[in-house]
């Protein structure tokens, strides 16, 4: 194992952080690269889920079990605190997603589109119209 180009033990204990970074960046890419507002929200949700996975993975103990206490005195439990914080974050996340989707519905009612570049073009038109009136 020592002759390998990389330290396998190091990779095995860090690869999961890298997985979540890759997922997070996929979500970020979807959010910044596409103009459709609904798709942006899906991208944000992917980003958010990657953060949750990263956070929960810090509390994991290899060989441990879920923190539901048993009578076995030798049992090792994973850390319950990250789980609690992420439970709260998931519920807050769905609340903000609902708010964002409601905003998308209102934007569609006002501008007739949910594409970012079309909304910006309409905004410029409206600004120009107001400027002419003044």
């Amino acid at each position: 194992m020592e002759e390998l180009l990389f330290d396998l033990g190091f990779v095995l204990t860090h690869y999961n952080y890298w997985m979540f970074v890759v997922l997070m960046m996929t979500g970020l890419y979807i959010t910044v690269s596409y103009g459709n507002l609904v798709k942006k929200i899906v991208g944000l949700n992917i980003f958010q889920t990657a953060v949750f996975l990263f956070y929960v993975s810090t509390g994991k103990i290899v060989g441990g079990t879920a923190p539901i206490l048993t009578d076995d005195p030798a049992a090792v439990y994973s850390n319950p605190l990250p789980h609690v914080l992420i439970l709260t974050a998931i519920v807050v996340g769905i609340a903000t997603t609902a708010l964002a989707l409601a905003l998308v519905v209102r934007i569609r009612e006002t501008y007739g589109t949910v594409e970012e570049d079309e909304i910006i073009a309409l905004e410029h038109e409206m600004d120009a119209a107001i400027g002419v009136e003044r």
Partner: protein
Amino acid sequence: MSAGLVGIAVIDILLFLFLVLIAIAIARLRNLFAIAMLAGVFSLLSAGLFVTLDAMDVAFTEAAVGAGISTVLMLGTLALTVREEKPVTHSPFLPLLVCAITGAALIYGTLDMPPFGAADNPVQTHVAPYYLEQTPVEIGIPNAVAAVLASYRGFDTLGEVVVVFTAAIAVLLLLGGGGRSGRHGKVAGERKKD
């Protein structure tokens, strides 16, 4: 220890590959209905990943909220707006560059992280042992997550309820209370389009 790590790694990497494939499919698809469905699948698979990380309660919540409620909200939005995304006109290189640099910085940051799954990580040595030891004594239920959620950190949960309440009020104001001005705005928007 190492055998346990390899076992976890196989399942983890398999689930992760599925998640990345779904995320890429979401990026490439233009049909928003398919995107909403894939987002639900993504949540369900991430719930599987939570199970491998010993977070049963989080997995339940993610499956119910992420795959259930979130998909319903998304479909409701699609019914009120559009079904199809318009093609992207600008080049994807700048966003790709930004994501690559951010990702590289984050991975550089993880090199200093404590090893995954070790029992003596800093995160395991502060309040967690107290919660695990005192939950049967002080709270009297076997589920340590529920004990921390509802009792030890009950104020967090109160704050969460306040956030959900605020979001619910805001959604009602946006969709219900603003109905008249919304229709007025829509007329203005349509006129602008013509």
